[in-house]
């Protein structure tokens, strides 16, 4: 075989070989965005289905996490920017071809709406809560009256936010690991699964947890199915895709992906949830923690590994 050696003369410490531009900020945001998307989705879904009474944690208590996660995630995104004081430029235009523009606009809508959602339940959660101002009381009444409408809006926005975490990466043609269309659905399912895990963790209601466990089992199965498809695509792909695949099969991300993401983050919590549904006692925080941890590691692995892969020329 003819050998080829490429020596780049780009010996510039500011650019090469450290092109790693995205660090923990992006990975953390992708995780928190998916988590918030999941929580908001299930809160609004159960309200639309009229199951507010049966699923109190999903609708009320857990939804407190969503705005907090979004705010922390937005903070992380802001830290990632290099030209921070110009961040408002995101909101002077809409770029239909740029997923980041879509994401920025969606976040601008979903963050305040998720706060309003939580605020409308504050009186139910804390009976002594007092809004102090009359206009706030009136606004609360208005929101409660239109809660189903709000739920529908949040349901759609939560879909966009959770899919966006994957599409943000898959839009980058130059990084073959990311440039796969299945990444959007995969991040969506993974984010929703994280959301469910968070709800299950804080839920004190046995029957509610059972329903959530069942949904989560389906999501875990779908996620495993999508991961198999992802790797089938890489295996059958061109040289650059195979190189991306090799990072996970013998490469530096083998252990972190297969052990922490697949085994500890998906398979084990899935098995524990099956045991729990069969009536065995499993501490409720164990599967929830594993899913959240696996989801976080998954984001870090994808962000780090994707930046290594590139076109070979």
């Amino acid at each position, binding site marked *: 075989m*003819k050998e*080829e050696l490429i020596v780049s003369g780009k010996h510039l410490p500011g650019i090469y070989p450290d092109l790693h531009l995205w660090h923990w900020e992006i990975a953390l945001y992708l995780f928190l965005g998916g988590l918030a998307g999941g929580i908001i989705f299930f809160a609004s879904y159960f309200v639309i289905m009229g199951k507010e009474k049966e699923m109190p944690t999903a609708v009320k208590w857990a939804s407190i996490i969503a705005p907090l996660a979004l705010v922390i995630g937005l903070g992380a995104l802001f830290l990632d920017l*290099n030209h921070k004081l110009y961040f408002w430029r995101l909101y002077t235009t809409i770029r239909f071809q*740029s997923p980041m523009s879509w994401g920025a606009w969606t976040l601008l809508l979903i963050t305040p709406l998720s706060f309003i959602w939580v605020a409308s339940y504050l009186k139910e959660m804390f009976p002594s809560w007092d809004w102090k101002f009359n206009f706030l009381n009136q606004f609360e009444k208005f929101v409660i009256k239109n809660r189903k409408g709000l739920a529908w809006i949040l349901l759609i926005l939560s879909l966009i936010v959770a899919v966006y975490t994957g599409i943000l990466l898959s839009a980058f043609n130059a990084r073959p690991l990311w440039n796969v269309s299945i990444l959007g659905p995969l991040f969506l399912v993974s984010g929703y699964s994280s959301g469910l895990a968070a709800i299950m963790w804080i839920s004190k209601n046995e029957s509610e947890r059972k329903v959530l466990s069942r949904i989560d089992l389906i999501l875990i199965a779908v996620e495993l199915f999508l991961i198999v498809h992802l790797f089938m695509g890489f295996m059958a792909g061109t040289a650059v895709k195979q190189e991306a695949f090799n990072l996970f099969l013998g490469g530096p991300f083998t252990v972190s992906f297969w052990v922490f993401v697949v085994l500890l983050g998906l398979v084990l919590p899935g098995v524990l949830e099956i045991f729990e549904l069969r009536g065995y006692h499993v501490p409720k925080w164990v599967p929830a923690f594993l899913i959240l941890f696996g989801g976080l590691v998954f984001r870090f692995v994808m962000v780090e590994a994707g*930046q290594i892969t*590139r076109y070979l020329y």
Partner: protein
Amino acid sequence: MRYAMAIDTNKCVGCADCVVACQTENLVPHGFSRDWIVEKVDGTYPNLDMAFQSERCNHCENAPCVRCCPTGSSHIAEGGIVLVTHDECIGCGACIESCPYDARYVHPDGYVDKCTFCIHRVDKGENPACVDVCPTYCLHFGDLDDPNSDVSKALKDRNWYVLAPEAGTKPQLYFLR
């Protein structure tokens, strides 16, 4: 109008004059550069073949950086030159991640910076700084739509290749071999 550059890999000696000329012309901060030299060695020892490529932004016709930019800061100017408007750039890095050629970097001032084909010179009818300074005359710049331009003439009777055509970006740097 369609600006492009042809790089004669048979003539390039890898002296990096183009790199220094660009850094001087465009006041590129220390430790960064908008163009660079790639040394390609082919074959099995002792039968080796060596070629130099002077690379920079490919000013792609289907530019992924422009597509990914959330603020419209990255844009295609007249003549197909891909530019960044500094005070619209938020430094998010989407364009850097989307570039198959790694042609962009974050300027210490926060915005993303890259080769401009020296548009300030081209607008006056001059060549980019790297082209003018090349001691072996291996860089050819001009308008592809004009058959008499330097680049059109260079491409006419030579074989050429572009970098990573499979990325689908329609790059506008042509490497003569």
